[in-house]
Each structure stands twice: as C-alpha cells, then as structure tokens.
C-alpha cells in the first residue's frame, strides 16, 4: 500500500482513536472502537500481515467489541452519575504533556531502527519444508514456537479461572446468563438457527486452509465461539453450568493434548515439543484439531462472564 491510501488510512485511524478517547457516551465510544478495529485490519493488510488481519477482525474488533458492548449495557443506568465529570485542567495538561512526550520518544526510537533490519524470515524459509506446512505463520506458531502457543492456551485458561473466581458465593457453579429478552420466534432466534451451521463450516474451512494459506485455528475458534455465543444470546441454549465436569473436560482437553504431544516429542526427539522427522505435519494437525474446540469454548466463556444469579432449580 503506497502513498495516499496509507495516509488516508492513518488519518482515519488517528482521528477515530481521538474520538474514542474524547467521547462522553460509553456506547458511542464502544461503537467507535469496533470501527477502529476494522480500520486496523486494513492497516495489517497494508503491512502484509494477512493472518494478523484476520485475527484482528475476528478477535480485536469482533469479540472485544461484543465484550465491551455487553459491559456497557450491564453498567448502564447506575454509577456513572456519581462519577465526577472530567478531570481538572491541571491533570489534562499533564496528560497531554505525558502523551506527547511518549509519542516523541517512540518516534525517535522508530527512527533509530537498524537498517538493514534483522530478520528471521530466511531461517523460517529454510526450515519450512521440514514442518510440512506451507503457511510460515502456522509453522512458527505450531512448530518453531509451539511453546508460546501452548503457554497462550494456558494463559487463556487462567484468565477464564480468574473471571470465574469473581462469582458471588451464592451463584458458584451456576450458569452465566447472557440471553437477551428475545421473542422465541423473532429475528434473533431465526439468525441463531440459520447462521451456526454456515459458521461451523466456515470455521473448519479456515482451520484447514490455515496450513497453506492465511488462516488457522485462532480465527476458526473465534468463529465457533461467536456462533455458540449467538445461540446462547438468542436464548436457544443455556450456558453450561460453571461447575460442570464435562465443560471443564472440554476446556482442558486441548492444552492436555498439546502437553502430551510435547512430552512425546521429549521422549522421541530429545526436547519438549520437538517433532520427530516426518511426523511433524500429522502432529501439527492433531494439535490444531484438539486445540480449536477448547479455544472456542474458552473464548466464548470469557465473554459470557461469571455467573451472577443463583438459580432456583438446577
């Protein structure tokens, strides 16, 4: 992307960020944030990072936007009236000075980036054939830096446990409730009946095609998570109880398979998460297939939040 389109995009991104920060109404700021996420997707594509663009569109704009809209609606109608209006002039001036200072320092640092830039791309290109996948990012995520992906899956589980730990004592083990006041024959229920099959097919396609083209399990898992969330929000299915063993089995299955393969690699190839020759592609496929459902369930439950009400009957 050269010249004028990049400049226009940058102007839009900066303008929208400024608007989000200065907006007084919460819902307006959140709506601006979703649009901002989609503009960022264009920025990623302009930087030749298509996988990152898909992840940003799905998780950064989509799921985070849904999360924040849910938060804005839950917090509406109380509390904000008691928060004093905006800070005094002194704090604002200090904040402006601080932000301009940080921006200036970063611009100077960016100007000092080494030229030619150190890069690992040739190393990845040389060893790509050994992994059996064609997409270098999938190879990095699941072969060269598989440890990072494993730790990320575990971090997501920790975040979910932290969210669940905020449950009131009376509601422990109950179901989170994100359903809206919907008509069972209404449009939302109709969408929640028709879209999930299409969404599941698209998610599996993105997972499968991620081996050789942009895609992969994160984007696929996000689509699965949003389909399940749609069904829960339309009231067609209830969220599973937090204390349910089956749910917890689903959640840990992915990371456990990942760890098991890592241990197998330690036994067969000498290092944790090393792949023996020739078995790399099948192992990668197994990890992806195991990790995607766990990831989808984790992402959906992170958005659903902690159970809030004790139920009268289980």
């Amino acid at each position, binding site marked *: 992307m050269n010249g004028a389109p990049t400049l226009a995009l940058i102007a839009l991104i900066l303008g929208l960020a400024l608007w989000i920060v200065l907006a007084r109404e919460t819902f307006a700021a959140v709506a601006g944030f979703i649009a901002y996420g989609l503009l960022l997707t264009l920025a990623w594509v302009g930087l030749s990072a298509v996988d990152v663009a898909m992840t940003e569109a799905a998780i950064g704009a989509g799921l985070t936007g849904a999360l924040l809209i849910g938060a804005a609606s839950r917090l509406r109608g109380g509390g904000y009236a008691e928060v004093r209006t905006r800070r005094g002039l002194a704090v604002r001036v200090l904040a402006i000075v601080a932000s301009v200072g940080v921006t200036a320092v970063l611009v100077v640092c960016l100007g000092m980036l080494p030229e030619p830039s150190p890069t690992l791309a040739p190393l990845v290109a040389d060893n790509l054939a050994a992994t059996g996948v064609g997409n270098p990012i999938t190879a990095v995520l699941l072969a060269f830096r598989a440890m990072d992906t494993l730790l990320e899956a575990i971090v997501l589980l920790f975040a979910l446990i932290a969210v669940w730990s905020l449950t009131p004592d009376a509601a422990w083990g109950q179901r989170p409730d994100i359903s809206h006041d919907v008509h069972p024959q*209404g*449009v*939302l229920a*109709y*969408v929640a009946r028709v*879209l999930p099959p*299409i969404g599941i097919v698209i998610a599996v396609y993105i997972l499968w095609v991620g081996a050789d083209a942009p895609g992969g399990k994160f984007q696929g898992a996000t689509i699965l998570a949003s389909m399940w969330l749609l069904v829960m929000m339309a009231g067609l299915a209830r969220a599973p109880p937090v204390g349910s063993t089956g749910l917890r089995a689903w959640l840990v299955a992915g990371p456990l398979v990942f760890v098991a393969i890592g241990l197998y690699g330690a036994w067969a190839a000498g290092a944790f998460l090393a792949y023996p020759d020739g078995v790399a592609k099948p192992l990668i496929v197994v990890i992806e297939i195991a990790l995607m459902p766990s990831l989808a369930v984790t992402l959906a439950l992170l958005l659903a939040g902690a159970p809030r009400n004790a139920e009268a009957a289980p």
Partner: protein
Amino acid sequence: MNALLERVLDAWTVVAVSAGGLFFLAGTVGLLRFPDSLTRLHALTKADNLGLGLVVLGLLAQADSVLMGVKLILIWGLLMWASAAVSQLIARTVHEAKGP
C-alpha cells in the same frame, strides 16, 4: 486480445467500486442528516446494500478463479442477510423503546 480484456475488466472494477463508494457515502450522509433512528436505518440499509453489491460486482472482475468468485458471492449473500437481520432488530428495539 488478452491485454484489452484485462483493461476492460480493470476499468469495470474502478467504475463499479467507485460507484459503490459513492453509495456508501450517500448512506453516511443520510446517517448524519436524517432526524430519526428509523429514517437513518432506512438510509443505511438501502444505500449500503446497493454500495456493497456494486463493490462485489466490481471485485468479481478481479477474481482469479471461479472458486474465488463463488466466495465473493457467498460473502455478499451473508452480509446482506446479516444486515437485514440486524436492521430488523434495531428497528424493533427503536419501536419498542418508543412505547405503544
């Protein structure tokens, strides 16, 4: 012959995508200028759907394979369907908020 075909296709893409962009602009002007939620919704759905259709038609000329063209049309269909559903939901919410 091939170069001429390519140029015709490129010209079609430019014309169609620009026209689509104009319709999106018109929809946004409607969003900003109309007085009421329902009228704004009307402007958005009509103009944006037309703009989307024109953009997709323009991009179809650039598709490398039949599969890519099919994917573009599938995206078009999904977006129209989703936009129809969401407009219904917004309109119902606005209508119910106004009260009986």
